[in-house]
């Protein structure tokens, strides 16, 4: 069972308290009704599914109930970092993901 750091509670809590909510940083258009078919396809259907670093949304559903963002490595399953919803995609990841996980 993974430990996940909730950026709102500022604590590492067991995975049981969280629920995955799909890929992060997929913005809903302010004028969604006017989106082209291609734009809507990208927004609703297309997901990156990478091998390696993925940006995800998680919810601390059995805790503070907040949605937040996380960077996870799909190879090792490790959480590299977490940050609040609405914050920009981190431009730089910590060098040693082990350090982050161990803290």
């Amino acid at each position, binding site marked *: *069972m993974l430990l996940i750091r909730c950026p709102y509670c500022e604590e590492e809590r067991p995975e049981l308290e969280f629920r995955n909510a799909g890929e992060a940083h997929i913005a*809903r258009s302010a004028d*969604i009704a006017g*989106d082209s*078919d291609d734009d809507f396809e990208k927004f609703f259907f297309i997901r990156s599914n990478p091998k390696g670093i993925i940006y995800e949304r998680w919810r601390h559903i059995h805790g503070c*109930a907040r*949605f937040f963002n996380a960077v996870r490595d799909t190879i*090792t399953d490790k959480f590299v970092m977490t940050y609040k919803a*609405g914050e920009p995609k981190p431009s730089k990841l910590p060098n040693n993901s082990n350090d982050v996980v161990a803290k």
Partner: protein
Amino acid sequence: MSGAFRIPSAGRLKQAKTARFSFDGQSYTGIEGDTLASALLANGVHLVGRSFKYHRPRGILSAGAEEPNALVEIRRDAARRTPNVRATVQELYDGLEAQSQNRWPSLSFDVGAVNDIASPMLSAGFYYKTFMWPKAAWKSLYEPRIRQAAGLGVSPDKPDPDHYSSRYAHCDVLVLGGGAAGIAAALAAADAGVRVILADEQAEFGGSLRFEAAAKIDGQDGFSWAQAAVARLSAMDNVRVLSRTTAFGYYAQNFVGLVERVSDHLKNPGHDLPRERLWQVRAKRVVLASGAIERHMVFADNDRPGIMLAGAARTFLNHHGVAVGRNVGVYTANDSAYSAAIDLKKAGVNVAAIVDLRDNPTGPVIDEARALGIEVNFGRAVIRAGGKLRVNSMTVQPKNGGGERTVPVDAILMSAGWTPSVHLFSQSRGKVAFNDETKRFVPGIYAQDCVSVGACNGTDGLSASMDEAYAAGAKAARDASAGDLGAKAGKGTKPKVDASESWSRGMLGAAPGAGPGTTVKAFVDFQNDVTAKDIRQAVHEGMRSIEHVKRFTTNGMATDQGKTSNMHGLAIAAETLGKPIPAVGLTTFRAPYTPVTFGAIISHARGPLFDPTRKTAIHPWAEAQGAVFEDVGQWKRAWYFPQAGEDMHAAVGRECVAVRTNAGLFDASTLGKIEVVGPDAAKFMELLYTNPWEKLEPGRCRYGIMLREDGFIYDDGVVGRLAPDRFHVTTTTGGAPRVMNHMEDYLQTEFPHLNVWLTSITEQWAVIAVQGPKSRDIIAPLVEDIDVSDEAMPHMSVREGRICGVPTRLFRMSFTGERGFEVNVPADYGQAVWEALWAEGQKHGATAYGTEAMHVLRAEKGYIIVGQDTDGTLTPNDAGLDWAVGKKKTDFVGIRGLTRPDLIAKGRKQLIGLKTKDPKVVLEEGAQIVEDPKQAIPMKMIGHVTSSYWSQNCGRSIALAAVAGGRDRMGDTLYVPMPDGVIEVEVTGMVFFDETGGRLNG
């Protein structure tokens, strides 16, 4: 006497404490502290089982958890029958009953052993190759036969009467393995005061000190030192010592699963004791001290009962006081088997000969064996074992060929060397590294905060192991605890090794006589009956990766996970491929290390505790009325209320008629309820529902539809606006949590600028639906300050006030098509208000109705149920609900999805009504609908029945269906082919009763 092979001068058990037990109905006597294996051996019993595939007679190979052969059934009573228990692990208790497995009619005469004779037909990959053709024979012939023959042991057929417990634990340093190294590591960490857990799978700590007779630590013999050290650890407040506890799984971030066998060793376990306890431990640092496992020699017929690992024979002698034979042979490729010969010789057992594959080994044990007068042969191999139900000879030959000599023996002790137990390290996702000099895989790159010490790290010798372990334990404590405690780590008294035994390397793969080109049965994997030849054959047939060889031969795939066989199998595959061992690779170790019972994993989560049961405030009343309940999600809902002599059909018919004639009371408390509050509440509702909300006046209600972004219906429900900034939203019973999640998601992440609070109020309000022509007459006398006249409170309105003296949110709404109210009261008052309404209802001929009548009544009116009539692929338009989509709105969740080309295309499935031509025939829900029943199979299916009932009010059956282009087919005849004939149906509108809707106000 506790067995003819017991040597009173040897071992540590107290001879006076005898225990009676039975094996296959035969009674024996053992001693407390015996394992079933040692007690059987004390009585001269070696034959304990039949092998999986060839049904070959098998004995006891080991003295521990790695045992592949000696699997038995332990029986306490009819329900407590545990198959596949390792006799080497099961502790003896007085009255223990054990049975052998996988044999018929008896262990010594087993019909299945014909497989052994037919073995040329049962070679590697046999199942894959033989049963491929013809396909039809698989189901009728092969599969039942294989299933009958496959598997060791028989599952118990009664529910498990035992209970299991589960605990979470946290610690600074978790030490896995309680041999000399593990104890040393625990001491170093514990003396610093950090929180330590030390676990070992055996009943007593000490690991290999159980048999290493020469070891001396701190002036005591090794085993006594271990007991004293663990007693000291147990007495410390910061240390938890767990014996009989196996670390079976190493998961992410130092999360380790342990299972503690609490009562399997007790004669009469009290019912207050769990059988097993699951420990889920989160440790800051883990010290792996899991030791090493001895390998057998791979030679012809090396599986005969009486042939065992040398270290196991030492354990039986030095710990249990049991000689495994009277005239033993030894076959080895390293030093440690010499110690077994020496110990047995000193205990008075004849050692016929030591056969050592090595050419000219030297060392103290070899000198000592010679000094004791044991015959020692270098450069020779045992090429064959004689005997069937018990070994009776070994045939010796120079390893490069030459004259054979057959030596009579009643046991063969073998050792090909020791394999470091890297299972847990590998499970932690660490990468092993191959040491070419020692031919061992040892921990290489670590993936987690753990460290390996002692034999599992490839460290040889007691002294080096304990030094390494003590230092690692101290470091783990320092790393885990930065403060004062950590600084004290390792400052206690380090154990001092006074004497130890010598260690040397061994060999991997097949021994001479079982090499390439031979066809002998030289077993690599005893439990799955895999021979050296099978592995070579797999390579010859094209398997290149060890993962393929493993699956093709099933080497290492039995419940012992190849603890003794993996390295031999790998070496033989590598040799056959002509590649070095690391190039072929080691298979991945997976949890569990040893089999774990389902009981331990599920613990109390079974029966009524498997899933929470939710009951409404009115549940006790319904129960007292004799209601039949149905499960709706986690809820228990009253399904119908049968009166004397009524079946379900009669009860539901009566309830439906009563509601439309007089009135009915229905417990609707399970409806999901969410309060949407705040200055931007209406804006938020506009975005989450298709309907317009800004102009809905306070005190009015509206039926709302919620979509997903793809445009499909996600949920629905009636929403009341209580105030400009307050909506009382209802959802489907099953949809409440996901609708709440959906709303929170949008509020927090897409529309965070909106000032809105969401609160789940499902359990705060009990809901009593009062429906029918007399509904107003029933509630009017009880309502205190609300005018319930049609003028003051028309259909689809909501009022706040009081009923029976308690607060209410009173909705005028209907899911029956009749004049109706839904009385919301705080849940604590739910039953009292229900009883008051019920008493009032009795004056007006009201009935209580359940969910079945509710379903029928709403279907008579064509009201859909999301999740029954819709399936996640229907739009509001498909469901005939286009009127509920605000046409002038510029945004709501799903607005763009609704205009996708496929969602506006012609010929989509639409909800319509169906009437069977024969009104008495009730369609089956889910039945498929076709245009032409005479077409060839597979027919073109154009839709399916979503709801279907007998309607007593209509005097006929009614149904709803999703049919392609359904609304253009009004009046058409369609067909529903069923196994016993085709049913003719007519397409109709969805409303079957009171089409004009007059009764809503009637």
